[in-house]
């Protein structure tokens, strides 16, 4: 009996720091933000207690609505491109690379170890008016004179895909490797061509990985703020920029809090969708 009590006490002590950390610095702050998103604001930017839906109402108006659409479009394009590029890469590493596979995986991991800003600044140089890409295009005769690529949506997209591609490749790779090759051979034996085998055997089996990849890319790409500023010239503001501006520059905390809650809801929806789709895929098997 005494031993049991002591063990309980010990367990309690072991849990205290993590529970305190989560409660005090995640749960409680999120509650404060939630409360602030309904708060009033005096003309000088101070938060006044009260309850209003105005902050959310402001979000569905002109400027903010465009920001929402921008973020959504950018995140959707980033996710689509990452999956389109990431799937063949993962497929190649899983089935065709053979002994080179570990080296290729390591090569994909290295950029993770290099500061994100340094990676993005490398693209600022490459895409610049006098940068290598422009020079190559002029030399090869595709274009007559350098074109301005920086400051366009395309440049932002390049940076986003470059930053998030590894996050798409790894889950797909992890879903592809355990697939029993005999299943693919069976498909071929039953008279299916390579395309049909892929569409009816390999792709369905790897869907959980594809879904995870989509989640891993979509959620963080909604909250990015540095890439659109550095590569897109800060013209197309997305949710991440909006939060930074509202909190640190305009000091409009109630509306900022509403944006943060909205982003949180979006991410939650993304996770829910992912789990539902995953269950459906599992049920299909």
């Amino acid at each position: 009996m005494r031993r049991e009590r002591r063990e309980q006490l010990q367990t309690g002590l072991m849990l205290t720091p993590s529970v305190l950390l989560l409660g005090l610095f995640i749960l409680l702050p999120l509650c404060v933000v939630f409360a602030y998103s309904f708060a009033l604001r005096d003309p000088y930017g101070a938060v006044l207690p009260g309850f209003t839906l105005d902050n959310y109402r402001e979000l569905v108006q002109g400027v903010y609505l465009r920001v929402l659409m921008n973020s959504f479009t950018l995140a959707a394009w980033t996710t689509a491109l990452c999956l389109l590029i990431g799937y063949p890469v993962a497929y190649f590493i899983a089935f065709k690379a053979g002994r080179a596979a570990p080296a290729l995986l390591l090569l994909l991991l290295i950029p993770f170890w290099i500061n994100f800003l340094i990676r993005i600044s490398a693209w600022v140089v490459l895409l610049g008016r006098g940068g290598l890409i422009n020079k190559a295009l002029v030399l090869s005769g595709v274009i007559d004179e350098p074109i301005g690529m920086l400051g366009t949506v395309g440049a932002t997209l390049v940076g986003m895909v470059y930053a998030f591609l590894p996050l798409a490749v790894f889950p797909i790779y992890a879903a592809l490797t355990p697939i029993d090759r005999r299943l693919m051979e069976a498909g071929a034996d039953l008279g299916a061509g390579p395309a049909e085998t892929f569409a009816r055997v390999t792709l369905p089996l790897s869907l959980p990985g594809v879904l995870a990849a989509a989640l891993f890319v979509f959620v963080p790409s909604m909250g990015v703020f540095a890439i659109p500023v550095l590569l897109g010239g800060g013209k197309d503001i997305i949710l991440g920029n909006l939060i930074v501006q509202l909190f640190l520059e305009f000091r409009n905390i109630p509306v900022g809090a509403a944006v943060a809650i909205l982003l949180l809801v979006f991410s939650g929806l993304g996770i829910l969708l992912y789990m539902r789709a995953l269950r459906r895929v599992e049920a299909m098997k």
Partner: protein
Amino acid sequence: MLVPIVVLIAFAFNAGKSTVVWTGFSFRWFEKVVSNRNILDALQVSLIVALASAAVSTAIGSVAAVAITRRSFPGRDLLGAALAAPLVLPEIVLGVALLVFMSFAGMILGYTTLIIGHVLVSIPFATLIVRAAASSLDPRLENAAADLGANEWQTFRMVTLPQLMPSIFTAFILSATLSFDNLVMSTFTSGVGTTTLPLRIYSMLKLGITPEINALGALMVLANVTILLLVMGRYLPLMLKTNRR
């Protein structure tokens, strides 16, 4: 994936002021970086925050991981999921939440807030790494130690802990790296005089790119590769040792 990095490093050695036109080989931009007061100050802040937050994160994460895998208590699955939650919550939301909460609680932004923020970012990784290792431990080893007369604390210190050491070390290094590279959380939790290196680079980049940034980038790549090799060098023998049991 690597071409942009290689080009960046190459132009760090450019003699001219341009990051696109090659005018000759020189180390002048490296000299400029190591004599830039702002960069050195930011480096110092980043190192302090990285080491402190990694230590806190690894300590809290390891204790929680051992408790979750070894003890049964109500809400065990919930705690496990909650500790992994920052992985799927947008970091920017955690950042503003912390900022709002700190100003609500009257705390001044500085080292403490930075370290707390970075701990939130790295704790899911630290916990998951140590949890994976703790759940694959062989309980018979601990039973054997108890049979041989070791008390609970001796068993933990001499049998359990040494087996967990490689993963705790990995968790520490990964946490420190995540902290050192962090921009989003730092944007909201750093105060006057505690500008971290990524924040400094970001504000330099907004003004336009110079070979100085290339040189700084090249130095950071070098540092990262060195750490990676050191970790590999230390981690691999440890891994082999634990696998041989």
